[in-house]
């Protein structure tokens, strides 16, 4: 095994971890306001396919990213209408949203299967340009990768150091109390879903426009569900989510390394490692007494009329 293959694996882990982290950040905002979004898979698919389609038509990846983001927010608004305005069950609404995303994305993407696009341009780090091309090309990342850690810090700051974040968390803990203290739980939850949708859209955009640079039906392959798990893993804290995403993509990298080193283990079994690792970590943390889940997560706010 050469240094080059190790670096290659690291580089691909960073690529696959980025979309996961954006998506997890989006779900953290949703859940902090008290809403479980199980439809992430569908939201991501619609974002990824519409962003890809726009990139293919206009040949402008940034426009594609923008459309992805907006598509994510719009998809979350559907969920918002069901669970906030119509007070529907959150899990069932989320799964319905997932099926909607399966269908709609297949529809949007049907003419673009196998299409070629110019993905998000890679920007090389100044210090790395003296390295041999073989190495430096591995660490030419796109803008979204550079922005993902700052985004996590921004979300953390928004949630824990602004009035908006305070109100959002208050609604997630107890909507009635938040209402009594003069906040509007319905509006705050819509805002949370909107912002969360923007971030999920960003994650999906990175997946289809920067990482894989193609569109296939069901290309997210369970990432939405992994993000839901990572939210719990990170105890609803955006900074811990960085660690969670790193750990998860590290497990993916480890699995790729094992494969490239020629150890004879079925790739399908190796694929299960990240999921099993997540469950084990959840078990380890489940033993700790302090629970940090928003207290009214998943409950319907009945309003005051």
């Amino acid at each position: 095994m050469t240094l080059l293959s190790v670096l290659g694996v690291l580089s691909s882990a960073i690529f696959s971890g980025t979309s996961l982290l954006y998506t997890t950040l989006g779900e953290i905002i949703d859940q902090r306001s008290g809403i479980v979004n199980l439809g992430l898979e569908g939201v991501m698919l619609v974002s990824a396919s519409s962003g890809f389609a726009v990139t293919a038509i206009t040949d402008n990846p940034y426009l594609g990213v923008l459309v992805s983001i907006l598509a994510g927010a719009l998809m979350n608004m559907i969920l918002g209408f069901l669970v906030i305005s119509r007070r529907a069950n959150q899990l069932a609404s989320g799964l319905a949203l997932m099926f909607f995303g399966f269908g709609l994305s297949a529809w949007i993407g049907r003419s673009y299967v196998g299409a070629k696009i110019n993905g998000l341009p890679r920007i090389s780090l100044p210090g790395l340009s003296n390295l041999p091309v073989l190495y430096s090309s591995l660490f030419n990342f796109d803008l979204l990768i550079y922005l993902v850690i700052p985004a996590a810090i921004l979300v953390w700051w928004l949630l824990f150091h602004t009035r908006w974040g305070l109100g959002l968390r208050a609604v997630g803990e107890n909507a009635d109390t938040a209402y009594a203290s003069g906040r509007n739980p319905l509006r705050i939850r819509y805002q949370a879903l909107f912002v969360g949708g923007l971030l999920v859209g960003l994650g999906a955009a990175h997946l289809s426009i920067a990482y894989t640079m193609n569109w296939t039906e069901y290309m997210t392959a369970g990432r939405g569900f992994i993000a839901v798990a990572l939210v719990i893993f990170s105890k609803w804290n955006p900074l811990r989510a960085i660690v969670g995403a790193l750990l998860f993509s590290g497990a993916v990298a480890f699995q790729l390394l094992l494969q490239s080193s020629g150890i004879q283990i079925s790739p399908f079994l190796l694929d299960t490692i990240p999921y099993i690792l997540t469950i084990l970590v959840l078990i380890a943390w489940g033993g700790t007494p302090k629970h940090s889940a928003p207290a009214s997560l998943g409950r319907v706010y009945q309003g005051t009329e």
Partner: protein
Amino acid sequence: MHFLVRYGLMIVIAFLFFGLILLISGEDPIQSYRDIFTSTLGSSYGFSEVVVAMSPMLLTALAVALPSRLGLINVGVEGQLYMGACFSTWGALAFSNSPSWILLPLMIVLGMIGGALWAFIPGYLRALGLVNETITTLLLNSVAPMIVSFFVFGFWHSPMDTNKTPNFSPSARLPKFFDTRIDLSLVIGLALLVLFWFLMRYTRWGLEMRAIGGNPLAARRNGIPVKTYLIAVMCIGGAIAGLAGMTQVSGYYGVLLVNFSRGIGYMGFLISWLAGGSPLGILLTSFVISIIFSGGNLLQLTRDLPYAVINVLLAFTLFVVLARPSFLINRKEA
């Protein structure tokens, strides 16, 4: 009766939405809908295909409805279904020379064990209070298809295709009825629904389960073994899901295909939830959803739309039912 009218109207609204989308993408909605209905309810063959699509959904919905009586949220039917299919396929391939009266019961038992084992993990972790079952079942859903792929690609694949096993021997196939594709799984599903209704209504188990679902703490103070119930019922739910997987490979497909499910496990959750966990509701809801599913099959062939598009119509129906439009609801109920 009022109930039926209301749900009928909701479905009409959903079809209007979907028609709009069909129109936008250049299809003729009226012709498409005519296709859907003539292909499903318009002929005895079409009707039989609806029943074929419905059979596994009865089981996957029941696999959610039973644990939900305890307040358990089993979103893991998809994974349990795959494990059931995997275990029973092992039986079918290892004992393919056995006569059907030995092989089929063996496959059924193996399928139920596979699903139950997969549900035991979240059930046990929940009973110990370590991890919420919603999240573990979701994670295990992603793992199960990989295990199926491991066995199929690695050991079981047929000489021709790498992504599926050889066709099962005739003795490993569930018997079919009336020259259609309807197989024994329909009878199993209906019988289990009746059994579920009877158990919940007339037995001590049903009473104790409702007690736990209502107030777990009070139930424990009254001497009901809550932990045992949580684990056992979760496993039984998983066993039913595994049975659904077994009927899919043994009845519907006759081979084990990688990624065969197309979301019928998740569909089971939605059906159970829409039906409020009631056996009759599960039957009716599964029937309506199967009409959409098998109609969509035809839409794909005649209208050149991707198969997944039928999920949009399905989702519209679900959205409308979830949103309960206010003009369709009695003021008293709301």
